[in-house]
């Protein structure tokens, strides 16, 4: 294997080696083609994937997800109606209502995992991809990608949506329940973010950033 053929391969160093993040076994990275997944030869951990030129597709996905996320925060996710009394709540509205009622701890947890983490995730992903689109090595780029990795387990939009569905079912006997625009927006955010993350491979990203002036 020549050195130059390895440079653009996911996670490979100039030496063509990779260390498993779960068991630290040092192993050679074979030549990869689009769609290939790297799996540790010892413990089976997923070590990255190689996607063709599809990195350019991630920015539009991320921006669309951002718009839908804003929608989910401002329009009602669910509403209930009993005897003419109507009550509805959006993603941020839920946090505000919890805070108003003095349930500060729970409000903070929902705020951090339902709003702050997903928002920061979308912003840092958009920032990292914008740098690539503009072909510029921005100074805060490493920090943005580090943030992206750290936030991943804490952004819980999909669990938030499932929570909305469960509460709709729980209330079905008590009131007339109405799923709102916010719920559909959340669904969009989940699909689009999942697609963005599936397409974004960190190593391929750095390989392209590295060759920028």
């Amino acid at each position, binding site marked *: 294997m020549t050195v130059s053929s390895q440079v653009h391969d996911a*996670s490979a*160093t100039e030496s063509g*080696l*990779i*260390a498993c*993040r*779960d*068991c*630290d*076994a*040092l192993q050679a990275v074979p030549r990869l083609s689009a769609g290939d997944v790297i799996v540790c030869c*010892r*413990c*089976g*951990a997923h070590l990255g994937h190689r996607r063709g030129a599809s990195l350019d597709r991630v920015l539009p996905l991320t921006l669309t997800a951002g718009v839908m996320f804003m929608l989910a925060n401002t329009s009602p*996710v669910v509403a*209930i109606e*009993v*005897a003419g*009394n109507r*009550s509805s*709540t959006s993603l941020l*509205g*839920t946090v505000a*209502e*919890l805070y108003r*009622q003095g*349930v500060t*701890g*729970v*409000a903070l*947890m*929902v705020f951090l*995992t*339902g709003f702050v983490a997903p928002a920061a995730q979308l912003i840092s992903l958009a920032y990292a991809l914008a740098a690539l689109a503009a072909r510029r090595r921005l100074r805060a780029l*490493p*920090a943005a*990608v*580090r943030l992206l*990795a750290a936030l991943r*387990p*804490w952004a*819980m939009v999909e*669990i*938030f949506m499932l*929570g*909305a*569905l*469960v*509460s709709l*079912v*729980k*209330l*079905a006997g*008590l*009131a007339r329940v109405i799923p709102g625009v916010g719920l559909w927006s959340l669904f969009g955010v989940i699909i689009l973010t999942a697609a963005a993350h599936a397409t974004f491979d*960190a*190593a391929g990203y*750095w390989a392209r*950033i590295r060759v920028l002036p």
Partner: protein
Amino acid sequence: MSSLSAVQYPTAASLGLSGCSVCGQLNRVVASDSLCRHCGMRLTTRKPNSLVRSWAFLLAAVILYIPANLYPVLESRTVAGDESDTILQGVVLLWRSGSWPLALLVFFASIVVPLLKLLAMTLLLVSVHARWTWRLHERARLFRLLEFVGRWSMLDIYVVAFLVALVRLRSLATMDAGPGALAFGAVVMLSMLAAQSFDPRLLWDSAGHNERA
């Protein structure tokens, strides 16, 4: 020790290298404060103080697991009467109301997963201390499962958040978060932190399957 029969792999650590935890780039660790040459992440061969940090988060989660299950997470005041439900009572209620697929889902997310997670995390930590070689591959897989599934336990917190924010129908019905909600959310987040602090590479180190420097 049975490490005689074990196949030892060369590892990044044994050669003075480190795979970056963010971008996967293999780096030579020159000093204790070396940074990844691509993304600028601080390089370590193993997560610092992994075992101590993991034990601390796990212990805190175990302690809070008791109030999380004994105290009500939801207190509802409806025309049908007052009621306060713990996590388990909430599942039973959902089951009785006829939506058994959702009841099953909540049962797994709120009862099975948190409990199994605490037990599994204890098992993994003990196995590192005791230098087990027993079922190493399965333990590595168990850890990956924990990392993936742990966050879904936040489901109940979101359900409570929605119900509390939504059911504000003056004299007809109100719902409030009980003290169990905060404790339960804390259990989920602390056990996520315990899993994140744990370094799965220690499983292979302590079993003698990794080469030493």
